[in-house]
């Protein structure tokens, strides 16, 4: 009863909280289904952590291999391993990374902030800059500016990420020496406060721009198309008949309605970006989830990989809830079901 009362108190202060709680509850089965699929998929791939460790040891005997396997529980039948895994998940225990000799959750939590910083920063930049360029292009349809924006945006979209990254490193780190080549902070320096933030920002600049440039094209083109569509709506003619200027019509009547497809795209790309960051994190030695996942794959660190995939699915599910909230905020016709 007390829990109930506190929920209704919560919903008084945050009218959407009921909806959010319901959505979170509904996503638990989805979350478990994803976990089971991940597990089966990874089990289908040949090789496990014991094989890799034994291989690296060089002179591993079959007995050593068998000992490793039984130590990791890899000698159990698959279904037993799965049951064990799901049981652990329900206790919010993501397991142990045998490779890193560290708890999976701790390992991920250590790396997650760096990836989230990169991801949110890059998506935010691509979204805002893309929206601005899209608006600009739509106001000069088929003109020189429109074509220039399209060409430049598509050029970055078509160029492989690592190439853009390496190009930036050569120009800004090697030749100009303005920015560090990689990493999250300056090695050996122990800055605090503002100095620390500036240090991270300098390290963040290139990986963030590299990722953002890739997604910029999508947002710019989408915004342009969306703006053009909304400009043809009857209510824009109504706005003109009121005597409003084109600038005011764009900002007040068109922009908000043109944002809907952009928000949809944003939600979809949160998932893509977690994958896309593997390349960028590797190029810029960015200590994030992407690189951790890559290392986990190479060393067949199944527990770690499963943990990362799971955390990613949590991020995606949360992003979807946020997108639905944004819909309801942007378009009053959309009402959130209880």
């Amino acid at each position, binding site marked *: 009863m007390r829990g109930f009362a506190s929920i209704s108190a919560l919903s008084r202060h945050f009218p959407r909280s009921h909806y959010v709680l319901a959505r979170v509850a509904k996503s638990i089965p989805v979350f478990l289904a994803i976990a089971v699929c991940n597990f089966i998929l990874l089990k289908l791939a040949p090789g496990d952590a014991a094989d890799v460790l034994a291989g690296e040891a060089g002179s591993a005997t079959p007995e050593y291999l068998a000992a490793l396997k039984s130590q990791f529980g890899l000698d159990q039948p698959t279904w037993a391993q799965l049951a064990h895994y799901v049981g652990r998940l329900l206790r919010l225990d993501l397991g142990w990374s045998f490779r890193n000799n560290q708890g999976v959750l701790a390992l991920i939590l250590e790396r997650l902030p760096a990836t989230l910083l990169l991801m949110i920063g890059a998506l935010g930049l691509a979204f805002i800059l893309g929206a601005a360029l899209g608006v600009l292009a739509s106001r000069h349809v088929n003109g020189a500016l429109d074509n220039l924006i399209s060409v430049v945006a598509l050029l970055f979209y078509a160029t492989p990420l690592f190439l853009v990254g390496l190009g930036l490193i050569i120009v800004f780190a090697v030749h100009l020496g303005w920015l560090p080549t990689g990493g999250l902070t300056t090695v050996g320096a122990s800055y605090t406060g503002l100095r620390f933030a500036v240090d991270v920002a300098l390290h963040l600049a290139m990986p963030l721009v590299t990722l953002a440039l890739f997604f910029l094209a999508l947002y710019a083109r989408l915004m342009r198309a969306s703006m053009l569509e909304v400009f043809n*709506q009857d*209510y824009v*003619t109504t706005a003109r*008949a*009121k*005597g*409003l200027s084109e600038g005011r019509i764009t900002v*007040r*009547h068109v922009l908000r309605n043109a944002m809907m497809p952009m928000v949809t795209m944003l939600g979809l790309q949160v998932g893509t970006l977690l994958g896309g960051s593997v390349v960028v994190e590797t190029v810029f030695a960015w200590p994030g989830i992407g690189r951790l996942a890559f290392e986990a794959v190479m060393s067949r660190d199944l527990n770690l990989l499963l943990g990362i995939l799971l955390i990613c699915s949590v991020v995606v599910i949360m992003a979807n809830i946020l997108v639905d909230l944004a819909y309801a905020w942007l*378009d009053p016709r959309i009402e959130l079901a209880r």
Partner: protein
Amino acid sequence: MTLLAIDDLQTHFFTRSGILKAVDGVSLSIEPGEVLAVVGESGCGKSVTAFSVLGLVPNPPGRIVGGSIRFEGRELVGLPARDMRALRGDRIGMIFQEPMTSLNPALTVGDQIGEVLVRHRGFTRRQALTRAEELLDLVRVPDPRRRVTEYPHRLSGGMRQRVMIAMAIACEPKLLIADEPTTALDVTVQAQVLDLLASIRARFGMAILLITHDLGVVAETADRVAVMYAGRKVEEAATARLFADPQHPYTRGLLGAIPEVADDDPAMGRDRPRLSEIPGMVPALDAMPPGCRFAPRCPEAMPVCRTAPPALRPAGGGVAACYARQDDRPSLEEVA
């Protein structure tokens, strides 16, 4: 002084397949407080004429290539965009055919009405919302206090058209252009909206340019009627006169196509004569016949009709562009 004088207006559309002369030499005039109806089939250029007045014809492809539009003695053709914007929504209000799509779904009703007052009268948002509430009451929207804060999707088509009207009359314009204001509405709602327009006109003394294809609407509201066909005006007369004694064969055809329902008809339509229709189709804008544009469909067409377009001349108390109806009929030689 004449409020609005349109003289020999030509609005053309420059498309890839050629020049479409949507409005090709139309002249209309409206006195202060008068209701002028412009009727005709879809594509006859009546809406383009209305949009031309406010400079709302999409350009490209559309452009006013000739003629003049004088509003309160001031030339509107070629008026700088800034001056035209100052007129729109202030001296000239406009309402449209589709109330369902003419309101922005993302803004409240109050903000959309108030916007006009903020733009033209320098109201603050708060003042504008208060006035919007009064305007909603004026256009007979029930519970205006609640409605100002609501979004358009909560309102029915009829209510939305009332909101559009409130928006158009917010600055008490001298001229209200109504482009098919009742076409998208249910018949019962149509009557209410027409009634509302009539009472607003009486209250503010504004003139109305009513664009419609519905002669029933015309009969109820207009003082004078101009009939358009294929980009030209073919007849104009006072409403009662036009209905009593139509001159142009096209006008007769239009009137013949109105169904009549007699309450005391015991046969309930079984033995009544078949509803007449005008045979043929409106000619395509890029394939106009050289003479009278109605000649290919006209039951009374003569050889002269196919050679040169007839001019508007006095006929039956109004004017008509028809060789067969003119009081001083020209000879064939004169035309040639």
